[in-house]
């Protein structure tokens, strides 16, 4: 099919430049339609938040004991999405994995924007969002300090660090490519690109320093991939709530994050590759590697789910066991089984090589995984709180319109940045693609 297309000859440096920069020069009507759509979603989300700021959190569906709901679910979802990019760009870089090259730029962009999206939620879920600066330990005359024992405080540092490092790493990778765009652009925009390219001229000395810096940042970013979602999982694991209070959470969350992140890369990049005709640079082999990552992490997740049940039963802790039994059989069973089907069952077809090389199967299963991973967080956040310790307070939480609005708005916000990125910056790493292309030695083509 499309992506199995084998070019009759490899791309040249010039073709790589042109194919990838072409996208930036000619936005289509479809692009503007998509941009209009995500902007609308974003405005709807903004309006929803305005309603919440004005009338209070009462417009959301949360209530005791379900003090967290869709906001935190979606927050964890986006933090998870924000994992694959740095994993692909940093860890795979360090292990010199070749398939990374075609997909890493888009994944990295996805990471930065997903973390930007995730960062919205800790603010907008607050009862008093205007006091968000209190979460930073700044010196003040009132001797007010933050509580470093609180996992939310750890979140502040973990996520802001992760965001900073991911964004810087993203930008460093972009510098040589921006220089290429600069060279292909004219007018005022050329000045912007000139500024962003930091005077990149592609000299040997620049490349020498550049590669050292890139390797350094890759090494810095790699552990953050593991730490940030571990810290996010502590939001739950540290609290005493049954169904949260579990040591399995950090590895389980990291695996889930990589799972959802890789699936999201497939979801985003597959249509792009086809639409932009980038078969020469990103093809089915890349997606197959992503699918294999998903298969691995899906297996880890399935094992983690099973372990949770085993521990719930084996511990004879009535609260734990009640939660896990209820998750699978109670009022939220539909959410639980959605999660199991999407995360444990849906990826199974990928074990068959022909299916994981089929773009349709790839795309549809990746959508399932995205849905499933949202529901995984829903199960964790909502059902544990819903049936907490005191049976007289048990409650059935259902999100309100405002919560749905803000969640949808977050997708709009993410899409908005991603679309701007597609139009402004090369979505495939041109400089690195060129490393895989035979150097333009005179007569080289003929020699092959």
């Amino acid at each position, binding site marked *: 099919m499309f992506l199995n297309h084998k070019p009759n000859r490899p791309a040249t440096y010039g073709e790589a430049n042109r194919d990838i920069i072409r996208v930036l020069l000619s936005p289509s009507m479809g692009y503007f339609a998509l941009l209009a759509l995500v902007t609308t979603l974003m405005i709807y989300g903004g309006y929803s938040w305005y309603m919440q700021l004005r*009338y*209070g*959190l*009462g417009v959301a*569906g*949360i*209530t*005791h*004991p379900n*003090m*967290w709901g869709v906001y935190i679910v979606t927050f964890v979802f986006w933090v998870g999405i924000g994992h694959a990019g740095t994993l692909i760009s940093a860890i795979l870089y360090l292990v010199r994995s070749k398939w990374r090259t075609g997909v890493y730029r888009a994944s990295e962009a996805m990471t930065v924007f997903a973390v930007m999206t995730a960062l919205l939620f800790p603010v907008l*879920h*607050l*009862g*008093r969002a205007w*006091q*968000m600066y*209190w*979460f930073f330990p700044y010196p003040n005359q009132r001797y*007010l*300090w*933050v*509580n470093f*024992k*609180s*996992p*939310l*405080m750890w979140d*502040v540092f973990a996520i802001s660090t992760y965001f900073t490092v991911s964004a810087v790493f993203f930008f460093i990778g972009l510098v040589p490519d921006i220089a290429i765009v600069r060279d292909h652009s004219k007018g005022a925009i050329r000045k912007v690109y000139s500024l962003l390219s930091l005077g990149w001229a592609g000299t040997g000395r620049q490349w020498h320093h550049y590669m050292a810096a890139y390797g350094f940042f890759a090494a810095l970013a790699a552990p953050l991939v593991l730490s940030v979602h571990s810290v996010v999982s502590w*939001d739950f694991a*540290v*609290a*005493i*709530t049954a169904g949260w209070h579990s040591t399995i959470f950090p590895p389980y969350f990291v695996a889930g994050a990589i799972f959802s992140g890789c699936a999201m890369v497939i979801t985003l990049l597959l249509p792009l590759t086809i639409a932009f005709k980038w078969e020469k640079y990103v093809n089915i082999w890349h997606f197959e590697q992503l699918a294999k990552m998903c298969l691995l992490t899906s297996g880890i997740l399935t094992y983690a789910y099973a372990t949770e049940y085993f521990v719930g039963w084996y511990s004879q802790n*009535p*609260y734990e066991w*009640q939660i896990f039994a209820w998750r699978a059989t109670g009022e939220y069973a539909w959410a639980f089984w959605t999660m199991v089907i999407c995360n444990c069952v849906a990826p199974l077809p990928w074990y068959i090589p022909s299916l994981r090389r089929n773009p349709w199967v790839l795309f549809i299963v990746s959508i399932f995984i995205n849905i499933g991973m949202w529901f995984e967080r829903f199960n964790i956040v909502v059902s544990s*709180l819903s*049936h*907490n*310790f*005191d*049976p*007289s*307070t*048990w*409650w*059935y939480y259902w999100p309100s319109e405002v919560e749905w609005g803000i969640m949808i708005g977050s997708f709009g916000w993410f899409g908005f940045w991603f679309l701007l990125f597609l139009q402004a910056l090369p979505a495939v790493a041109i400089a690195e693609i060129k490393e895989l292309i035979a150097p333009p030695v005179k007569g080289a083509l003929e020699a092959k």
Partner: protein
Amino acid sequence: MTNLNRRDFLKALGITSGASALSACGLDDNRYRTPVESILPYVVKPDQVTPGTPTFFATSALQGPHAAPVLARHRDGRVINVGANKRAPTAPAVQAFNLYELQKHFSPDRVTGPMKAGAPVSWEDGLNELSAAVSAKGAKKVAYLGGYKGPALEQLVGEFADIAVFWEPTGYDALVDAAEALFGVRAMPHYGLHKAGYVLSFGAPFLSGWGDSSIAARYAEARDPNVGHSVVRFGLVAPHRDQTGGNADDWMACAPGSELVVARAIAAWVANKKGASAEIKALIGNVSLDEAASASGLSKEAIESAAANFAAHDSIALPGGVSGSTDLAAATYLLNLAGGASAEMFHFGGFSGRVDGYAKLEALKAALDAGEIAVLLVDDANPVYALPGGADFGASISKAGLVVSVDSAPSETAALASLVLPTSDVFEDWGVEQPVAGMYLTRQPAQSALHDTRSLGDILLAVGKAAGVAAAAPAPAAEGEEAVEGEEAVAAPVAAGFSAANWQEYVKSWVRANLFSGGDFSAFWEKTVIDGFVSAAAAASVPGLVAGAYAFAATEAQGSGEYFLHLHNHSQRLDGRYANQPWAQELPDPMTGEVWGSWLEVSKATADALGVGYNDAVIVTTPAGEFEVGVHVLPSVPDNVVALALGNGHTAAGRYANEYGVNGAAMATLAKDSKGNATYGPIKVSVKSAGKKADLVTAFSTFGMSDEGRSFGVAVNAGQLAEHGDAASDHPGEMTGIHHLQLDARLREKGISDFYGLPDHPNYRFGLTVDTNACTGCGACSVACYAENNLPIVGKVKVAEGREMGWIRINRYWETDQGGQDDIRFVPMMCQHCGHAGCENVCPVLATYHSIDGLNAMVYNRCAGTRYCSNACPYTVRRFNYHSYAWPEPFNLQLNPDVVVRTMGVMEKCTFCVQRIRQVKSAYKDGGNFTATVPSEVWEQVPACAEACPSQALTFGNLVEEGSKVVAATKSGRRYQPLEELNAFSAVTYLAKANFHIEPPSHGGGHGAGHGEDHGDAHHDEAGHGSDDHGEAAHDDNHKGGEDHPEAGGH
């Protein structure tokens, strides 16, 4: 202006801004007489006023038909709370109803000034119109219809009106008439429950506002295992379990209307067993247990066992509730005599005020219909709403020449008045009450009138004077204070006529005439007003029977249909008199959790037969019409009965009452028992599904009714409890049989009870004891908390979303014991002020922290609203301000100035009333004690909940002080803490409830909380199921053998 220099500019600026600030003070807009605030301190401090400290006025508040001695807490010109007058002998606490009176006082729906035909008039014009109508009455009569408000007012009304009816809508007339028929006294019985070993009730809601203000305390005393080493057993013969019935140990669900025959059968059985006099036997008649069994649907064994219990103990029988008849009351009186109840337990020195039965009201109605009434004064009585359907009192009222409402609260009856002369309420007026025989309560204004109201006494005096009403009694000499000062005036003339200068003087002269026994009256009066009561112990004696025979007759069932409709008083709104008080609307019904409206209780079988479930609407067809209501499925009624609370479905009683629920009273037809008293039962109805959802809102979880064996509601064997009481036990909590996972024994041997250690509490660790055996689920603690801590009312829609703000909720756990008896356990749940609080660690901004006094403190200003603390709280006691809530004026005047009003986005929870703790500490220091801690007995009732609890189930104290009650409770054999195994080290100790149906724990595994898991093979050395081992209650865990360690027997 070019010469304007900087100094002049500043002067001008100062003058103009000062002037505008002054004019903005709004002196003319002082509608509710809010205090004019001044930032300057007093140069000469007025008497009684210390800024920042409350002043207390001993007065009496109404509590349904009764009055209770209370202390009104006055701050800055207004009453902000009502507390118990602990000096008075009758009531140790306030009840929720006293607080509803407070909210009634501040109701935004009160009439704020005289009105004529809906338009404001001046008092002069209003009084002139009334005077003119009274003086022009001619052959017609002046009638008064109102609730009873004490003997002084009764006397004045008697002089003013030709017909005076002091009407109580629900049930009291039957009690008085039965007493008259049997004993020749028109009085209500006094039930000395505290001496009882067995209480057999036929449905009287004696823990829900039916009895006098201290009946719940007397019941709690009988229930207290430490007093007399017995626990009263409570048998209930009734077709429905209301809040009072929820406390019953044995519920015998009889067919509606069969209570009478059961009562007589038991009485006959007991009379035989105890050898009662032939006179009593003759009055009871010969009713066999078989007869009772077939009429009631109960088993003969059940009735016999109730009778045997009755005969075996010092027992008291209580009559029926609103559906009870005069005959049932008489039968219970005879049962008490047959059982040999002592005078202390049963005499007719109960509420001795005047309550008129339906007969009087009927006479008034006849007079109205005949056009004989020139003027009708209506005060705090609402027959248009409360009479059973078909009475059509409204039509009769309109036949009076002039209908005057002398009540400031709106009601369906007051709405028919053409002239409204709003009267001051109990917090603004003078008065005398007689709650029980031998005791009088004085009432004094605890604040100046909130609105342009006058006291009813002043109105009557003024109109009486102006219209020249001939007083029934000779007019007394004018009694100015100066005339009597210092005089011996033993036989002072009875105050009468309309000569008194004002109502205050009238009350004073009434007191002088009736209560003063000589000496210095001025000193006596001063002491009386300060104390709030005059007590003269009346000798109690068992009344002598005057009746030779009593004709018992069952009340005929009305209507037809397959179900009985059982009507009962609402636990908070009673017969509807408190329906417009938002606290009474929002406080969950203790049994169902229902708020803001009506519900129909049906059994599971009935619900299945009708094909409905929770919140499905059904249509109930009664003889008086049909109504639609939502279904609440609960095993509180037998299969052939559906139950509906009265007190809802108002149409003109104010914004919080109107349109919520259905008026059950209007749905009954006017039925009379054999003695002519109106009754609400039995009614037969047909019920069918309406095929749609209703709008019920319950504050309880709809997921289940039990605590799922999680040791929230725990019961212990009553016999064992009675034997040991709360004496310090070597194994605290051993009676409950609950065993928790705990630390490894090797750690405990080293004295390590906890990995982290408790926070340091050098002087205080405040704690609370909750005796679930004494708790009756009435909710007074919760209402007191609303009043004290400025908790907002959120309304029906928001409660449906789960946003109620109560800091104390009364969990109701419905457990089924081994014997198949339902045991309903009320467990008040508030912040546990944990030593290791889950909430404290997770707050990112340190808005909640552990104070040095052991309080889990909450800094509202610092809270940013992550709500993480609530998620981390295993007790789910934190409440979040989802919105900024409003207090419609003048509710805002009730706000406690010591407690901040929280705004949107902030978490809040129980503080143990930290503001009161501060006051106590400051006062102690002011007394010169700078180093010592405040002794424990001072603390016992400091928080509002503990102060309010009518059964004194809550005790506050200092856990650091050995010898305080709270420390003693931690050593009791029935102590427990919900979720203790989480090691939160809660500061609240619960004491388990007595239960007559469960076995004491015989080995390691107990049954009290359903913790029946196998403990036999658990090894203590390895995180086994040991008994608890907390700091204050540590014990040696090396087992010495089963004989002295009952719970170790299984090892």
